[in-house]
């Protein structure tokens, strides 16, 4: 029955590939948002879903990644594809430094999660006062005339960004699948289930946990770059805010933590419901500020109460995708 799963993936991918040709600009922007969270969710899933390390501060890597590439572009005219490598390295190192301290001093579980929040908040406050990149006033990237496409400098129409994030989300899925079937994937899952038993089987848990944290952090930096160039403006209050971290993790939690497709399904559902609700409320003419968050809360509550594994495992069983 694995063929059904593969056919489904190809079908959905084909649909997404042709989307800008037949859908409205609004739908394309929604799909971009969905794919962005699908990508970032997959990055987070490598840490929490595979290795069992709860991060509630992925906004840190999102922000640092965004600001690094944007500042290099703005100040030194270094193209995003070059600046990206600096951002990847920087976020990988940041993640490694934080994790090494945590693991060395046995900060685990809830306390590890608190540490990740603290680091993101620290960065938010720091960037608020970092005037070289605009401080709390924000950093704005030069906007070129509409219609011109410059892939090298990531300036162009929404469709370009749509295809870029589609590529990234697809690549993240491929990378996740490969990692899960590799030694790293086996070891991460062993550590997630029982670190003690993993160590007794020859797994150097420190080394493999570090790898998970670094890959996850670096991948999120790429999401940061995308975000910076898609919106062309950067504010510490938005990029580093804890609500960003929460948005990143909602997709995987609703879709299924630790699964390959969970983060994608979850992101799709949340984007559809969140914006559906906003649209609906606007159409009816009610004034409900924060209706999106309200919907997120209800969905999260329903999932925790009725499908604690997430949607994907239940869906896969129902559709008999794996057997």
């Amino acid at each position, binding site marked *: 029955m694995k063929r059904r799963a593969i056919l489904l993936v190809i079908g959905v991918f084909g649909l997404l590939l042709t989307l800008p040709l037949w859908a409205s600009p609004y739908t394309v922007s929604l799909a971009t948002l969905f794919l962005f969270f699908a990508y970032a969710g997959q990055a987070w899933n490598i840490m929490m879903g595979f290795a069992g390390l709860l991060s509630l501060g992925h906004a840190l890597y999102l922000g640092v990644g965004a600001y690094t590439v944007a500042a290099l572009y703005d100040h030194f005219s270094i193209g995003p594809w070059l600046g990206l490598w600096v951002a990847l390295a920087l976020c990988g190192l940041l993640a490694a430094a934080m994790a090494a301290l945590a693991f060395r001093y046995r900060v685990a579980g809830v306390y590890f999660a608190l540490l990740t929040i603290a680091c993101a908040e620290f960065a938010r406050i720091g960037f608020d006062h970092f005037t070289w990149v605009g401080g709390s006033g924000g950093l704005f990237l030069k906007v070129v005339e509409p219609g011109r496409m410059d892939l090298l400098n990531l300036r162009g129409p929404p469709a370009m960004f749509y295809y870029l994030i589609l590529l990234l989300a697809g690549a993240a899925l491929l990378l996740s699948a490969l990692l899960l079937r590799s030694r790293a994937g086996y070891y991460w899952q062993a550590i997630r289930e029982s670190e*003690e038993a993993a*160590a*007794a089987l020859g797994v150097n848990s420190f080394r493999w946990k570090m790898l998970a944290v670094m890959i996850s952090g670096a991948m999120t930096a790429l999401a940061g770059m995308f975000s910076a160039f898609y919106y062309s403006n950067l504010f510490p209050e938005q990029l580093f805010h804890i609500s960003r971290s929460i948005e990143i993790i909602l997709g995987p939690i609703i879709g299924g933590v630790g699964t390959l497709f969970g983060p994608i399904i979850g992101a799709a559902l949340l984007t559809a419901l969140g914006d559906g609700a906003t649209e609906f409320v606007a159409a009816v003419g009610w004034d409900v500020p924060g209706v999106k968050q309200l919907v997120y809360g209800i969905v999260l509550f329903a999932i925790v109460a009725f499908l604690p594994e997430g949607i994907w495992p239940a869906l896969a069983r129902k559709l008999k995708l794996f057997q």
Partner: protein
Amino acid sequence: MACARTQAEAVPMSASLAVQQISKSFRGLQALADVSFEIQPSTITALIGPNGAGKTTLFNIIAGAQTPDRGAIVLDGCRIDGLRPDQICRLGIARTFQMVKPFAGLTVLDNVVIGALSCCTRVKEARQRANAILDMVGLGPKRSRASALLALPDRKLLELARALATRPKLLLLDEVLGGLRPSECDRMMALLRDITEREGISLVLIEHVMRAVMALARTVIVLHHGEVIAQGTPASIVREQAVLDCYLGEPLRV
């Protein structure tokens, strides 16, 4: 420690282990006091004693999960105390846990693959090795089950299979027979005998099932209040007054 590593590669499938004057206390409570014994290659040794005697603590120390306050653990002539559990595993000592710790979210096969990865360079080889070991312990038909769904006897087998997959020279088994029905117990005993005789792996068993201890062990070591109070053949142990005293209580003096 480089010495230990080269030794580990030179000696293939059997190991001699020396526990030398190991002491360990927890907040003033003496868990182990001056414990010494040796384990010969390709033999079965049983470690018995009442609850709280320090048997599991001793396993934890040999396997590197805890560090001793004093004393040394010597594997094939090289000190291994102070190494991490994963390093000790790679030197050839594997263990099972009394409270079985399956990787609950994974299948039976994947559980064993993780053990096999410690001695296989490729995932594919590890899968083959894991499959062979599952067949050997009799879990082959259940390889694709979720390990969380296994009943206790199968969990114990899984725990054993996972440890075996790491290609150990010495295997520390913490109550693998506990909670098994007599027929299951017999199967497990036959398996353990097989592992020692065919593969040459030394076994150390913590065991309360005396029938198994008497049948399997060449040497029995009796721990009581953290001290070795007797060691010898099973036949000699049961006649030892100190052992009778600690299990049955001291004779009433009138």
